[in-house]
C-alpha cells in the first residue's frame, strides 16, 4: 500500500502549511499511524487542538473528513448502519403478488436499503478519508465495544449482508477529554498521543500563525502571560483556542503593549470562572 507520508519531517511541514504547528510527538505519531495502519487515540485537556489535528491531517492528505460525534446513548444505528425500514416496507407492498418470499427477503436486505452511518461510510468509501471519532470518552463502556472491530480489522459485520471490509485503510483519530478511563481493549488497539498545552515558544508561533495581524512583540507577551496564568492553581486553565481569542481581542482593541490594567480587563476571555479571574487578577498585579 502506498504511504501517505515519506518522513516525520514531511508530516510536520505539511501540517505547518495548513497552519497547524505540530511538535515532535504529534508529527511522529501521525507518521506512525500511517505506516502501521493503526488508529490514534488523542488525549489531553480541552482546547489544545485535538480535533483540529484530525482536520488538518485530512487537509494535508487531501482526504475527506468523516466525523462521528460521540455522546451518551450513541448506538449502532447512529454509528454504524441502519436498515431503511420505510423503504423496505414500500418494497414489500409495491409488488405483493409476484415475488416469492425468498426473493423479497434477499432483496430488502441489500445495499439499496442500507443507510450508512459515519463508521460504515468511512469503511466503504472509495476516496481517501480521515475518520474522526470525537470525544470517545462520552459513550458508555458497553458502546465502546462497537468500535473495536472497526479499529482493529477495519471491517464491519452486518448479519444480513456479511462482512464489509475496507477498500483502503483510513486514518482514524479518536479524541478524548479524559473524563473517564477508556477500556484496555480500546487502548490496546490504538497508538496513544497526549497533547498538552504547548510550551511558550510554540504557543507564540501558534498565535503568530493564527492571528497574522499580531506583532511579534505582542505575541511574545501574550504567550508569557498565558504561561504564567497556567502555572496558577485554577479550575480551568486557559486553552490554546482561548489564547487565540485573546490575541484577536487585543488586536481589535488596538493594544500593542499589554499592561496589568489591560490584562485584567480582558481576562474574562481567557478564563471562564469568576474565582479564576479574581485569582489571576490578584496574582498578575502582585509581585511575590
Amino acid at each position, binding site marked *: 500500500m502506498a504511504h501517505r507520508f515519506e518522513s516525520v519531517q514531511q508530516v510536520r511541514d505539511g501540517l505547518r502549511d495548513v497552519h497547524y504547528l505540530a511538535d515532535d510527538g504529534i508529527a511522529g505519531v501521525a507518521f506512525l499511524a500511517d505506516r502501521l495502519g493503526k488508529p490514534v487515540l488523542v488525549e489531553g485537556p480541552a482546547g489544545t487542538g485535538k480535533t483540529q489535528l484530525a482536520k488538518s491531517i485530512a487537509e494535508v492528505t487531501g482526504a475527506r473528513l468523516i466525523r462521528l460525534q460521540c455522546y451518551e446513548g450513541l448506538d449502532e444505528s447512529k454509528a454504524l448502519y441502519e436498515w431503511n425500514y420505510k423503504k423496505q416496507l414500500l418494497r414489500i407492498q409495491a409488488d405483493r403478488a409476484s415475488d416469492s418470499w425468498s426473493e423479497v427477503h434477499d432483496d430488502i436486505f441489500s445495499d439499496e436499503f442500507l443507510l450508512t452511518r459515519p463508521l460504515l461510510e468511512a469503511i466503504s468509501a472509495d476516496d481517501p478519508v480521515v475518520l474522526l471519532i470525537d470525544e470517545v470518552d462520552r459513550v458508555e463502556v458497553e458502546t465502546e465495544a462497537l468500535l473495536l472491530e472497526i479499529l482493529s480489522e477495519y471491517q464491519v459485520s452486518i448479519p444480513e449482508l456479511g462482512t464489509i471490509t475496507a477498500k483502503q485503510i483510513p486514518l482514524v483519530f479518536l479524541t478524548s477529554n479524559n473524563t473517564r478511563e477508556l477500556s484496555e481493549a480500546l487502548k490496546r488497539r490504538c497508538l496513544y498521543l497526549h497533547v498538552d498545552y504547548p510550551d511558550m515558544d510554540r504557543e507564540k508561533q501558534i498565535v503568530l500563525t493564527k492571528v497574522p495581524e499580531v506583532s511579534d512583540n505582542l505575541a511574545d507577551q501574550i504567550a508569557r502571560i498565558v504561561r504564567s496564568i497556567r502555572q496558577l492553581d485554577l479550575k480551568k486553565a486557559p486553552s490554546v483556542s482561548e489564547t487565540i481569542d485573546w490575541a484577536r481581542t487585543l488586536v481589535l482593541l488596538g493594544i500593542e503593549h499589554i499592561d496589568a490594567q489591560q490584562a485584567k480587563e480582558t481576562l474574562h476571555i481567557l478564563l471562564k470562572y469568576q474565582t479564576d479571574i479574581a485569582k489571576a487578577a490578584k*496574582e498578575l498585579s502582585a509581585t511575590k
Partner: protein
Amino acid sequence: MLELLAGFVNELRAAGLPVSLTENLDAMEAVQHIPIEDREAFKYALGATLVKNNAHWRAFETVFEVYFSLRGPQYKLVEDESELDAMWREMQEQLSQGQSQATQGGAMDALTPEEIAQLLMQALLNGDQAMMRALARQSVQRFAGMEPGRPVGGTYYLYRTLRNLDLEGMLEKLLDASRQQVGGELTELEERLERDEYDDRIEKFKQEIEAEIRRRLVADRGAEAMAKTLRKPLPEDVEFMHASRDEMVNLKKALQPLTRKLAARLARKRRHGRRGPLDFRSTVRHSLSYGGVPAEPKFKYPRPAKPELMVLADISGSVAAFARFTLMLVYAIQGQFSKVRSFVFIDGVDEVTDFFRGEEDLANAIHRVNTEADVVWVDGHSDYGHAFEVFWERFGKDVGPKTTVLLLGDARNNYHASQSWVVKEMRHKARHVYWLNPEPRSYWNTGDSIVNDYGAHTDGVYECRNLRQLEGFVEKLA
C-alpha cells in the same frame, strides 16, 4: 534490536507500567519505520505504542533514559558529547580573552566558581539551551565530587552541585540584569513575567543537572542497578504517609482528574442498571389509552438514596496528609452524597463543615482547617478516646439511620483510654461505620495502635495507603 526492546519492555513492567503483548509487538513494528538516529522520534514511537496513560509518561521517560544511555552508543542513541566539550572550550576562551587572563591552557578547572557563575548567568539570561547543557555537564564534574562505586543516591550529588551554584541568588541577579536592560523600573506585570521566565529557565537547568548526574551514575553502576534505585511508584501508588514533597505535588495533580472520573462513574452507576418496581397506578392510568388493557407497564422512577456522610478525621502530624486527601476527595464529589459533614480532631474535636461551604477552592478550605480548627485539648497528641467522647456528646444526636460515618486515622492512641463504646453506639444508630487506616496492614495493632478495639465495632476497617485504594473505597461507598 529485538533483544534490546524486549529488555526495555521488561524494565517498564518492572517499573509498574502495564505493557501487553500486542503493545510490545506494535513497538517492534514501529521502530522499523523510524530512523534510529533520531532519538526524539524513537522515544515518541516507543511512547505512543507502549504507554497509554499520561500519568505514566514520566516513569517511561526515566526508564528510557537510563536504559538507553548505556546501550546507546552502539545504536547511536546518545548525542555526541564531544560537541558539548568543544563548545565549553570555546566559551572558556571567550571569557579568558575578555579578561586577558594568563590561563590560556583551556584546562577544565581553570575557571573560578565566580566565573562559572557568570557564564551561567549569561546562559540563563539569553536562554541558550546548548550553553546551559554544557554548563550543567561541567558543574556536575566540578562540584558533585562523584566517586566511582560510592553507594550514595543521586540526590546527594544533586544537592552538592546546587549548593555550589546558588541558584536562588541567581534569580535576583537575573532580575536586576533585565531591569538594567530596560533601563529603569519594570512594571509589576513585567517583573512578574520576567520572574516566571527565569524560574522556568532555572528549572530547566536543574533538570539538565539531574539528567547529567543520572547519566554518570549509570555509567558507574550499570543500567540495571540504576533502574532499580530510580524506580519510583506511579502517582496512584504513592503512599500518603511517606510521600515526599515532589510526590505530594504530583498526588494533588492526580487527584483532580481522578475525582472527575469518579464523579462521572458514580453518576452513571446511579442512573443506569436499576429499574424501580412496577408502578401500579401509572400502569392503570396508561392502560386507558389501550382500552383498559395494561399493554404498557410503567415502573417507578428509581430513586436510590444518596448516603449522608459524616467524616471524622484525625489531623495530627502522622496522618495529616491522608486526612487532607480524603477530605478533598469527598468534597470534590459531594454531589454524590445528600449531605456531607466533616469533623477533625487531635485530642479535641471541631466541626469544619463550614470551611468547605461556599468555598470553591478546596486547597484554601484545607488550609483553613489546618490553621483555624480548634482541635487541641491538652497536649496536641492524638487521643482518639477523648475526641470520640466529645464528638458523641456534641454531635451524636445528628447521627441517624441514613448516616454513614467515616473514621480516618491510624488509631495510634498514645496509650490513652480507647472509649470504644462510642463507636459501638455509633454503629447502632448509623447506617454504616467504616474505618480507614493509612498504615500498612502489617503495622496494625502494633505499639500503641488499637485499630482492632475500634474496628470490632465498625462495618469494616480498610487499608487506604494510596490513591488507588482510596478511590476504590469511595466508589464502593456512594
